[in-house]
Structure formats: structure tokens, C-alpha cells
């Protein structure tokens, strides 16, 4: 694609990006105001963050369809920062002074983000176990919910820790119902109606209604209500001024400026760390999630994006705005409205400037409870029971991690919460494996090998694979173009955790989207607590074979193709265990088990685990093979690619049988056997033609039939299909002769 062409597409796409930017700005406006208010900051600070974010990240960012602005996750952190930093020596909280100190923390966190981007540590989030992150997000949701539900009911005075606020909810509802203050009652009613709009918006399937996003409906309706009282009603507007948004008249000329006075204090440093942590985790999760939505299937440059977000945060902080992060909800709206490149983000910022300039006085008519309702809904979404169920389905140990992180975060602070989450995850991994050495000894060692073999990317992982060392695996996997075929082999791994399994499934999805193939092998012998594809897996020693285990994705896929090909699927087979040792190949190898067996009347395809050598020299090998039970007698022979001698030594002493009539075949294949005459008659022209025109497998014949396999490792589902097809065709030809 030439430069000019790219530019042309860009210009051509501008109209639809203009539109989607407009729709996004309709949400960003109320959300920006609401998030800022919930953070205890001046409402305009949220809009500033969205405007600066939209401009800077659109120009310098590395992602394509993301929208940037103030984030949900930061509400709790910023609120905590403003309150702690604003607390004077006398214990009195000065919110506006606290906000200036917090702005300084925001600026510094922006600088740290830029540094992280340059150090390529944008993927900070990878070092956290995913259930702990889920727990932390749920805790943030509960935090937002607990505070905002009081505001929604017209009570601005509710204060205290998250738990205290939660306890006060029933009382707050009772107070609201029994209130004699008409201002509070009306404000609360607006709040409750707004919440109902948020909840039922998606259920109303009406085109023209859906044109305006739910948060904007709330704004439009509340402004409309104000106008009604102003223009038509004789009664005064029932909601008092303290329950309306406060915006100064000269918004774009008077900016708050950060106060760096507390920069060396511990509480300040604490605030910087939490802000940076949440900002980078939230952005990263959003970028990853939005990449899955991108209709053009592009891959975002995470580090570049983090740098741009950092810079935007610094600028926003200096102008009196909140942090800039990538936000998932607004980005999805962007994609749904056909946003296709970064200009949508830019236009969304532009429309926000326009709104503020044109409608500043209208915005002042919005009651706070209306905005609080939007946040109550957001908080509920973050902490919904649905998420809890999802985590539980993965496994009960994940639920423990999730709940512990959640509870600790709510009752202490975010940093303590996530640390506890990490520690608990690690302890659980140690308990599940009953082995701490596995982790301690191998954590710093490299454990991933990647190489290309027959045009396929083969990745082998050793020791263990969990959130602790996932970056090593990730950096390798990121080097594989998603249009290629990749095989990830965990058979040398003793333990694979939930975070890794979840990521594997994400990779598989990404490869599938772009036409590649991504498969995970080597986990079929593992034990897992639940049916969920993301459940952690511990590889079992061979003696303990669960007769009824939980099937891995590969096993399920094999089952699926067995139905397609009309083969019967069994997890294990006893017959093969008896017959296989009769093949020369297994003379020196001890078979441990045969599993994942596909069979029809006289063909079977299976995974076999066997060992070579004894004691420490013992090596356990797993491979996929095809066995044909031939009806007619077949002479003993082995057939192999010329030049591969590994499988042949048990036939030592025999010479390569050259078939004079087929010099090409003799050149490419190595044929060994005792009874030369019989073998010569067995290899008919048709059989030779078939063998010549197909992939070269290792084929071995004995009195129990033919054994076919290619590599001495487990085959991916795709390879199994190829092998099965080859085997079936070969059988037909042999039976015919």
C-alpha cells in the first residue's frame, strides 16, 4: 500500500469518523462531568482530560479506534488522593487545595507513564494475575456505586469509607422516601429516573430513540425540565443550586494549576503510584479489548499509546484536568458507529470544545443526581454478579483470589488490594502444586523456545507458565504474524495458570480473526478443577490418569472432528496398548498410555505416551500416530524419508530396498525389510504413486497392521486431520490390491 493510497483512504473515511466522533462526544460530555464530580474534582476537569486526551493521543498514539479521556477506574483513586492530600494539619479537609496537590500527582504519573512507554513496560498489566485484576475492578465498581448512590438520591453529605457508605444505603433510601425537602425529593427523582433510563436503554429497540446515547438522553431531559420550569411554569425550579452542576462562566480561560508543594510526602508518592497503576492497567485492558473489536484487525502499538497517554496526562494535569486513559465503553461506541481511525478520537475532542463553548450555561442546569445515576450504573456494571459468576466458573481458587482482592481493596487501599491479590495467587499456585521450588528455581530462567519448522511456528514452554513469567512467552508469541500457523506446546510444563490460559484463548481468537491458526498442545494429561477453557492446569504424573477428566480444548476439537469424519472418539484405549508393542518402533520404548483415540472399523488415530531409557536418562515422549488394522497380510517393513535414520536402527543389518522401476521413489524413500521379495510385490505402482504424491510420513508395517506418524510429538488438530486423511486413503489402496 502506497503512502498516497493510505492518505486517500484516510480522507475518504473522514465523514464516518466525524459522525462517530460526534456520537462519542455525546456520551463523553455527561460522563466526563460525572466522573470528575465523583472524583471530588471540579466537573470541568473531566472534560479537559477528554479534550486533551482526544487531541494528543489522536495525533501521537499507537492505537486505531480507541477513545481516550477520564476513566472509571481512577474515580476511587483520585477521590482518595484529593481527600488525603487535602487534609490539613488540623484535620480539616480542603477539597480544592487537595485537588491542586492531586493535579501535581497526575502530572508526575503522566511522566512515569511516558517513561514506562520508553522502557517498553507498557504491559505492566501482564504481571498481575487476571483474577486479581478482576477483583480490583469490581472493588472500584463497588467504590463508585457506594458513593454515588447517595448522591443520586440527593444526599451530598454521605461520607466515610466504602463499607460505611454501603451500610448507609438502606438508611439513605428511607431518608429519601420520607424527606420533606422538596429540592432533595425532586433531585432524587431525577436521579432515579436517570438510572431507569440507563438500565432500560438497551432494552428499548427503537431506531430514533437509540440515535442519542443514554447519558445524553439524561442530559437532554434534565435540561428540558429546567427550561420547562423557566419558560412555562409559574412555580420556581424545585431543585436548589447546590444540587446543580457548578461551572465557572469563563471555563476556557481560567485553569487550575497544580501545586507541587507536597511532592516529597509519602501520601503524595502513594497517590502517584496508585494513579499510575490504575491508569496503565485500565488503558492496557481497554487497548487489548478494543483491538478485538477493530473491524480492520490492526494491532495496536501499546508502548506508543502509553507514551501518548502519558504526555496527554501531563498536559491535562497542567491545565487542571484529570488523567487521560483509554476507555473501553466509549471506544466500543466509536467502533459501533463505524469509527475507523484515530481521527474519530480527535473529532470527539473537537465536539466537546464546541459543546462547552456553546452550551456552558445549559450544562449548569443539569442536576448532580442525574450524573450520579450514570455512575451508579457504571459502578454496578463493574461489580455485577455476572462477573463473579464468570470467575467462579473458571474455578473455585479463582473465586478466592477475586474475593480476597476485592475485600482487601475495599477495606484498605488499592495498592494493598492488588498486592494481596498477587500474593494469594502465588500461594494458591504453590499449594496446588505442593511445590515451591518449581517456582523459586525457575522464575528468572528463560523458559520459552520458538523456532520455525516446515513453515510453522513451534513454541515450547518449559517448567511452569504463569502470570509471573508470562511476559517471556508473550514476547515470543507477539513475533508471530497472526496469519501464520502456530503451535504452543506445554508438554514440558508442569503448571499453567489461569492468566496464561486466558491469554492463549485471546491469541487463538486473534489468529482465527486474521486467518491464521493457533493451537495449544500438551495439556491433555493435565488436571483441572473445572470445565472452563481458562481454568489453570497442572500436569499429572503418568501414574495418576484420571479416567474421567475434564477435556481440554484440543480434546474437544478432536471430538468434534471425529464426528465430522464419522470416527468414534474415546479418551483412552486398551486394545492399542496391547497391539502397539508389536511394532518394531516400540521394541525399545515403553508405552505408558494411549489416549484421545479416534477409530472406525479398522483405523485408529491416537496420542501415545511412551518412554525411552530408564532412571534419569528416562525421557517421556508424546506423539500422535495412526494405526491401520489391515485385512490382508502385510510384509514387515519400514518406510521413511531418505536421510532420516532415527527410527530405523532396529532394522539394522538390512539394506535399503531399491525398486528399479521407480528410481525417483527409491531416491526419496528409504525402504527396509526382511522379506525383500514379498515387499517388492506389495509395493504396487498405485501405492508408490500415492506415496510419492503425498507428505512423507514414517510408515511401519507388522503383523498387526500399519503404523503411520510424522514427528515424534503431539499433532495439532489440523495435523491430525491431514494424518487421518492420508491414513484412510492409504488403507483404501492397500485393501484394493
Amino acid at each position, binding site marked *: 500500500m502506497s503512502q498516497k493510497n493510505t492518505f486517500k483512504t484516510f480522507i475518504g473515511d473522514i465523514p464516518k469518523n466525524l459522525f462517530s466522533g460526534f456520537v462519542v462526544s455525546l456520551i463523553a460530555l455527561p460522563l466526563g462531568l460525572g466522573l470528575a464530580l465523583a472524583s471530588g474534582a471540579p466537573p470541568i476537569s473531566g472534560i479537559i482530560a477528554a479534550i486533551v486526551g482526544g487531541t494528543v493521543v489522536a495525533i501521537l498514539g499507537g492505537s486505531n479506534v480507541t477513545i481516550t479521556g477520564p476513566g472509571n477506574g481512577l474515580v476511587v483513586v483520585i477521590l482518595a488522593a484529593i481527600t488525603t492530600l487535602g487534609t490539613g494539619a488540623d484535620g480539616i479537609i480542603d477539597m480544592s487545595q487537595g485537588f491542586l496537590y492531586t493535579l501535581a500527582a497526575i502530572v508526575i504519573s503522566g511522566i512515569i507513564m511516558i517513561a514506562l512507554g520508553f522502557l517498553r513496560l507498557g504491559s505492566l498489566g501482564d504481571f498481575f494475575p487476571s483474577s486479581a485484576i478482576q477483583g480490583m475492578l469490581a472493588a472500584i465498581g463497588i467504590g463508585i456505586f457506594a458513593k454515588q448512590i447517595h448522591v443520586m438520591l440527593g444526599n451530598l453529605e454521605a461520607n466515610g469509607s466504602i463499607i460505611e457508605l454501603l451500610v448507609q444505603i438502606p438508611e439513605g433510601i428511607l431518608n429519601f422516601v420520607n424527606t420533606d425537602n422538596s429540592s432533595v425529593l425532586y433531585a432524587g427523582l431525577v436521579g432515579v429516573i436517570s438510572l431507569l433510563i440507563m438500565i432500560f436503554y438497551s432494552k428499548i429497540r427503537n431506531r430514533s430513540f437509540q440515535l442519542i446515547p443514554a447519558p445524553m438522553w439524561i442530559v437532554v431531559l434534565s435540561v428540558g425540565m429546567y427550561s420547562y420550569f423557566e419558560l412555562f411554569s409559574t412555580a420556581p425550579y424545585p431543585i436548589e443550586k447546590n444540587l446543580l452542576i457548578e461551572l465557572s462562566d469563563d471555563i476556557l480561560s481560567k485553569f487550575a494549576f497544580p501545586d507541587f508543594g507536597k511532592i516529597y510526602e509519602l501520601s503524595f508518592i502513594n497517590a502517584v503510584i496508585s494513579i499510575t497503576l490504575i491508569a496503565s492497567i485500565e488503558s492496557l485492558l481497554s487497548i487489548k479489548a478494543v483491538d478485538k473489536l477493530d473491524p480492520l484487525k490492526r494491532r495496536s502499538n501499546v508502548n506508543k499509546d502509553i507514551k501518548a497517554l502519558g504526555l496527554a496526562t501531563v498536559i491535562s494535569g497542567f491545565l487542571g484536568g484529570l488523567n487521560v486513559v483509554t476507555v473501553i465503553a466509549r471506544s466500543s461506541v466509536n467502533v459501533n458507529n463505524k469509527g475507523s481511525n484515530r481521527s474519530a478520537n480527535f473529532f470527539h475532542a473537537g465536539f466537546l470544545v464546541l459543546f462547552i463553548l456553546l452550551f456552558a450555561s445549559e450544562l449548569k442546569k443539569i442536576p448532580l443526581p442525574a450524573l450520579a445515576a450514570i455512575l451508579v450504573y457504571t459502578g454496578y456494571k463493574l461489580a455485577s454478579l455476572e462477573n463473579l459468576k464468570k470467575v467462579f466458573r473458571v474455578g473455585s481458587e479463582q473465586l478466592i483470589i477475586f474475593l480476597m482482592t476485592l475485600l482487601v481493596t475495599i477495606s484498605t487501599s488499592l495498592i494493598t488490594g492488588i498486592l494481596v491479590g498477587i500474593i494469594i495467587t502465588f500461594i494458591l499456585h504453590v499449594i496446588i502444586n505442593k511445590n515451591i521450588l518449581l517456582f523459586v528455581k525457575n522464575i528468572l530462567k*528463560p523458559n520459552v*523456545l520458538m523456532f520455525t519448522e516446515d513453515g510453522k511456528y513451534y513454541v515450547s514452554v518449559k517448567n511452569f507458565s504463569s502470570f509471573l513469567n508470562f511476559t517471556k512467552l508473550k514476547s515470543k508469541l507477539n*513475533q508471530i504474524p497472526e496469519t501464520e500457523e502456530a503451535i504452543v506446546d506445554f508438554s*514440558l510444563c508442569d503448571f499453567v495458570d489461569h492468566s496464561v490460559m486466558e491469554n492463549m484463548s485471546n491469541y487463538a481468537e486473534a489468529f482465527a480473526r486474521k486467518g491464521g491458526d493457533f493451537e495449544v498442545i500438551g495439556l491433555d494429561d493435565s488436571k483441572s478443577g473445572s470445565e472452563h477453557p481458562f481454568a489453570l492446569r497442572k500436569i499429572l504424573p503418568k501414574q495418576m490418569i484420571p479416567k474421567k477428566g475434564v477435556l481440554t480444548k484440543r480434546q474437544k476439537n478432536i471430538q468434534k472432528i471425529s464426528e465430522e469424519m464419522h470416527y468414534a472418539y474415546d479418551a483412552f484405549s486398551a486394545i492399542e496398548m496391547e497391539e502397539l508393542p508389536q511394532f518394531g518402533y516400540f521394541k525399545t520404548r515403553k508405552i505408558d498410555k494411549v489416549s484421545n483415540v479416534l477409530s472406525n472399523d479398522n483405523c485408529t488415530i491416537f496420542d501415545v505416551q511412551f518412554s525411552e531409557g530408564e532412571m534419569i536418562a528416562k525421557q517421556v515422549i508424546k506423539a500422535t500416530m495412526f494405526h491401520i488394522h489391515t485385512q490382508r497380510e502385510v510384509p514387515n517393513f519400514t518406510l521413511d524419508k531418505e536421510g532420516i535414520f532415527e527410527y530405523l*536402527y532396529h532394522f539394522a543389518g538390512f539394506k535399503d530396498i531399491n525398486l528399479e522401476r521407480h528410481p525417483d521413489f527409491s531416491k526419496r524413500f528409504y525402504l527396509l525389510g526382511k522379506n525383500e521379495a514379498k515387499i517388492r510385490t506389495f509395493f504396487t505402482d498405485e501405492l508408490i504413486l500415492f506415496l510419492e504424491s503425498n507428505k512423507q510420513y514414517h510408515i511401519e508395517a507388522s503383523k498387526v497392521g500399519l503404523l503411520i506418524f510424522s514427528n515424534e510429538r503431539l499433532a495439532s488438530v489440523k495435523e491430525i486431520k491431514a494424518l487421518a486423511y492420508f491414513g484412510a486413503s492409504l488403507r483404501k489402496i492397500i485393501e484394493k490390491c
Partner: protein
Amino acid sequence: MNTINKILVGIAFSPNLKSNLFEAVRMANMFDAQLIGVHVGEETDKKKVQLSDLLEQAEPLKNSFKTIWQKGKTVDVILKTCTHEAVDLLILGALQQEKLLKYYVGSIARVLTRKATCSVLLMIKPSVVRVVCKHIVVNGLHNDKTIKTIKSAFDFSKHLHCKKITIVEEVSKSELHVEVNDDRTLRKSTIVKERIKNREDMRIKNILNEINYEDISVNTQSIFGRRGYSIGHYAKVKRADLLVMNAPDKIRFIDRIFPHDIEYILSELPTDVLIVK
């Protein structure tokens, strides 16, 4: 490595003395070399009888067997004998017990590989009955020592009748100069990798031109990954029987704390390892 005329084997009267000795004898016969056994410790009649009994059970040696009995520190004695006797190959067998294997490999063998003036063969699976060597993996690093190492690998495969050699070119990440960030950089890095792979294959081909390898099948495999680590992991995945490596350039104290190159292999011996000096 020059032609192997003298092979030194350490004799410890441990349960696997027999297999160690058998392997050494086999090796000496294959190379038509003289075998020297060193025992660090006292010379007693009992030990002597045990040793000669074992030697009688083993296949007959082509050349004479010489035993050296000396007291002192294991490492010092073996190193001194190596220089004194102008030994070409030092064979170290690992004990067949997992914990001890780690201990042994971890300490004595590591010091010996580091300091020995001759090539060192570390065996993790000495066997009384001969196990045929089927696949040799050898490093193809961009290093002056590599030519010699590859030649030794071919020399070994000829003497051991091994028919398959894979030369692994490890390319460290820093040589790529491209970080994969998005689709564009990914494409770029794939192209650069292809180019490096071709360059490496060419380099190896030039080395191979000097070698006469008739009936041995030779493959090259380039791996982009941590140097020294990847080849060990590869040898394990491919279940090679012998891994042939360059001698380490220079091991400083810091390399032991942050292991690199050969240290990875020494710490977890994926298979038998030959370090060529």
C-alpha cells in the same frame, strides 16, 4: 579439538562407576585412544580389584589402560592430570541420582568445564549397554571457535557412527534491531529475521564447505532467542543425544549470578554435552 589420543575419566567408586567406565572404554575404542583413569583418594587393594574386575567385564581395550591414584582436592587433581598427561578429552559422568546429579553437575563439573584445558564431555546417561547416538546438535554461533566446534562435532559423529547433525544458529534479540509493536514493525521484523536466517545459513554453508561429511544428513536451524538457552531447550525438544558447544569465552563472577550462554546448559543439562576447547 585435535585428534583424540588420550581420554581421561574420573573414577569415583559410586554405584554408577560401571556404566561410566563402560562408556569411557567404548569411547576410547571408538577413537582408538588411550584411556587414563584418575581416582582422587587412597589406593587400596579392594578398589584395585574392583576396578580390574570391571575392566574385564567391559569390551577389551584397544590400547593400554593407565590408572593414576592421587590424594587431594578432586578439581585440582583432575585439572593437573589433564595438563600433565596432555589429555584431549575429559569424560565426566553424572551420578544417577537426581539430587546428586544436580549437586555434581552444579559444582565440580562446572568448575572443571570452566578451567579444563581440554574438551569436556558431560554424560547424563552413561549406560552399560551401548545406546546408539542418533542425533547431534551443535551450535553455530557467530564466533571464531565455532568452526572448530563444528568440525569436532563431525569428527565425533564419524567415530560414533551418528548419521544426523543439526547446526543451530542462535540469534539474540539485540541483533534484530526491530521491536515488534504493531503490524508494521511485525512485518519488518519478519523480513529482518528472514534476512538474518539466510545470512546465518550462508555462513554455516561456508564452514560446511571445508568439511567432508558424505553420508551424514546435515540440517540448519536458526532460532531467535536467548543465547545458550535456546539451543539447550531445542536439544531437549528434539531429543538430541549429544549437544556440542563452544567453550565459554570468559566467565566472570557476574555471569554466575546472571547466567548466560553455557551456564544455562550446565545448570540443567538437557542431554550429554560436549564442550570443545
